[in-house]
């Protein structure tokens, strides 16, 4: 599964694009706003049929977990959900759930946008004290990106190190790669799921054509299977009624609509979703983050100098062209990237509010905002790098071992 925010680049024909050129396009492979505009998330929610994450739910989370809600919740980064309130109801009754997220290991270099869902998932794991399974879809990348099996397995292990560096608790986390784990009960569920989805349906959802190889067509059940607890007999045996919560980016919604459709027929709870908006590229909302352009994103391997450079040179600014105009009119906060990034990563609500008012009114200049952003991101990347340095191959083996997790709910 590609739990990637931002434009995921999976080259596949999409029937929808041919019909709806004027509207925005959001699919697992293609994200495009209306002509020259931004993504309209309200329209998206209506179209997909998911629900807004409103303040009452956020307060409820804070109450249930006994700690302040995560930055991403407070700032509306994770803004939509399906059945999250049901999960919270069950949690209140004492019924736990487990988390499921994943990554398509297509490249070694991770940028901050890739880390966003993992940072949020770590928060959920700590706040609710629930176990987590992380799927590394090396087979998907092998098929779609045409990598060799060995290369995709190697990338999966490398990405696992960065994921572990986000701070997951080994006694509550199971990371697995498809090439290693598919089989046994997992495969049984895959077959059960596959029997419930017709070819036409999968073509409709994912846009396969007669030219696509059969590997692609039979992949969706692989991504759907972890939503069901019986896929992990070493973890959840006997707990068929355990619910699943999936934090992901909103462009993955079509995948899980299919899974939710299948679940009742197999006798499981529908997996709940909590969805995030897209992480903007450095050049602005309209830009696309792409692996070929290293200046479109901040990578976790960037040095402090690189970060400073990238922000100063490439971050799209909403400030006016001259100081006088800026003081007069203020900045355009809607398109300003540094303020948006600060919205993701600056912990202190008051400080962010202060920056927004000062910058928006023109009293603060772009340089100061960029400087503050550089500090925040440098600290983040530095912390990540230190944690990454502490991850050994043995640690990856430990995380990926098929083992029971006692106390995963305590």
């Amino acid at each position, binding site marked *: 599964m590609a739990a990637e925010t931002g434009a995921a680049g999976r080259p596949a024909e999409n029937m929808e694009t041919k019909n709806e050129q004027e509207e925005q396009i959001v699919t697992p492979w293609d994200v495009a706003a209306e002509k020259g505009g931004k993504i309209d998330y309200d329209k998206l929610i209506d179209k997909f049929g998911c629900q807004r994450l409103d303040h009452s739910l956020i307060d409820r989370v804070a109450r249930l977990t006994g700690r302040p809600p995560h930055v991403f919740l407070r700032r509306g980064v994770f803004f939509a959900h399906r059945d999250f309130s049901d999960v919270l109801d069950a949690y209140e009754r004492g019924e736990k759930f487990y988390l499921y997220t994943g990554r398509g290991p297509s490249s070694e270099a991770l940028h901050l946008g890739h880390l966003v869902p993992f940072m949020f998932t770590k928060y959920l794991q*700590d706040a609710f004290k629930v176990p987590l399974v992380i799927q590394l879809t090396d087979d998907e990348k092998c098929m779609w990106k045409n990598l060799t099996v060995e290369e995709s397995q190697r990338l999966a292990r490398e990405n696992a190190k960065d994921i*572990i560096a986000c*701070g*997951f*608790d*080994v*006694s509550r986390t199971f990371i697995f790669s498809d090439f290693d784990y598919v089989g046994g009960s997992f495969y049984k569920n895959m077959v059960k799921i596959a029997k419930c989805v017709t070819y036409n349906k999968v073509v409709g959802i994912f846009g396969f054509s007669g030219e696509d190889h059969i590997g692609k067509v039979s992949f969706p059940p692989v991504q759907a299977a972890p939503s069901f607890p019986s896929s992990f007999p070493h973890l959840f045996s006997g707990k068929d009624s355990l619910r699943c919560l999936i934090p992901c980016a909103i462009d993955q919604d079509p995948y899980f609509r299919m899974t939710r459709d299948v679940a009742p027929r197999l006798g499981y709870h529908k997996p709940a979703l909590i969805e995030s908006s897209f992480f903007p590229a450095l050049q602005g909302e309209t830009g696309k983050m792409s692996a070929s352009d290293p200046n479109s994103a901040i990578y976790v391997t960037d*040095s402090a100098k690189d970060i400073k450079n990238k922000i100063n040179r490439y971050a799209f600014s909403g400030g006016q062209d001259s100081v006088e105009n800026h003081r007069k009119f203020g900045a355009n906060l809607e398109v300003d990237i540094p303020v948006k990034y600060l919205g993701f990563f600056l912990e202190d609500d008051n400080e962010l509010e202060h920056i927004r008012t000062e910058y928006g009114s023109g009293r603060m200049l772009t340089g100061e905002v960029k400087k503050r952003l550089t500090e925040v991101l440098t600290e983040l990347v530095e*912390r990540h790098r230190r*944690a990454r340095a*502490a*991850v*050994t191959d*043995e*640690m990856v*083996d*430990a995380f990926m*071992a098929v*083992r029971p997790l006692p*106390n995963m709910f305590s």
Partner: protein
Amino acid sequence: MFFFFPKSIFSLSALPYAASLKSQPLFLSLLYLKICLTKFVINTSRLPHSKSFLQPPHHNPQPPAAITATSSPRRLCFRHRRLPAVPSSVATLLSFPTDFGRIMRNSLSEKPNRCFIGGEMTFTNEQLLARLQELQIGFSQYEHPVVLTVEAQAKYVGNMKGALSKNLFLKDKKHRYYIVPALAGTKVDLKVLSQRLGLGKGGCVTPFALVNETARHVSLLLDKGFKSKECCFFHPLSNDMSIALNAHDLDKFLNSIGKTPAYVDLEATPTVGNDQPPDLASLVPSDASVSADPPITLESSKGLEKNHTSADEQPVIGAGAKPEKPSNASTKEKPSGAVNTSITYADPNKFVDEILEKTRAIVLSEIKEDENIEKYLEQLATIVSNNISKQLGMELKNLAIIFKNMSYTEGFKAGIHHQPKRM
């Protein structure tokens, strides 16, 4: 014959300098060094050659006209400095001002001199040469007038076989000392060297000075060029003589006094950055910790945290805690006792909350102790303790997770390699 400080002399509570330092045997010697070298200008090409303050000038047949011509006060290794007033009980030890004056005077006269530090003797030239002979180290010896620079030495021994050496005596910010003997022709870039040692960026010495106990904590970095020459000239403990020996024999001597010679390519300029740690960092002396930093008020809480967590968290704690401490809280002893419930240690978050609770308690209690400033500091206490919870809390939780993961991994590895009991 080694120079040795009886520890009893060093009840230095009376000394102003020592008030904030843990008493150390090396304190005086390093203080001595520090005073000597405070204004030492490091200039590789014109460095005075092999003139240690430890070595006594030898018999001088000629008046040292050469010295006045080539040397300036700046080039001499020691300074006449006045120390702050010290109690009379230790005045006898601290005869530095008179020592300085005496050595300076003697270097320009003909009296043989021995260096006194703290009332004990150091090695003399004859003793060193005798030592070398004991160790069966072959060397050729040449006497000449006192020389202070490489050029001066070259005048006398340059026509003979053997490479000339020059010496850099360096001190870093943390008052650690390095002697860097190099071939006279080697260009040493000090900025690069300090980077390679992992320091920031900053004598007339001889490698043989390390024989003295006072130089115990001085790091020696030898130019690897010495190894390739058949023999090199060094001064023994006096600068009116040069002895030639080869690098192998020098090693023999250094090993005999318990110093491992470290040969370094002084001209290399490897990039030192985040990915490449300083390649010479292992050569930085680690014991010499005469730190003149004022006591940080929360050393006690830092100490407590040390009980629970690994050593590399210290810089994090220091960085977070330092700016916020009120300067007039006094340092207290470390409170005892770690909490020993297995639940605390299994759950990193509870573990960290425990630490924070104790830190907060200490901060509040220390601040409230001082009655006079209580009312102003009540508010400060709350702010400080809130900051601790927020910033420190985040950092410590991250570190605790890494710690837990590593422990689990080690257990896991042991488990999979576990061999079942053979019946």
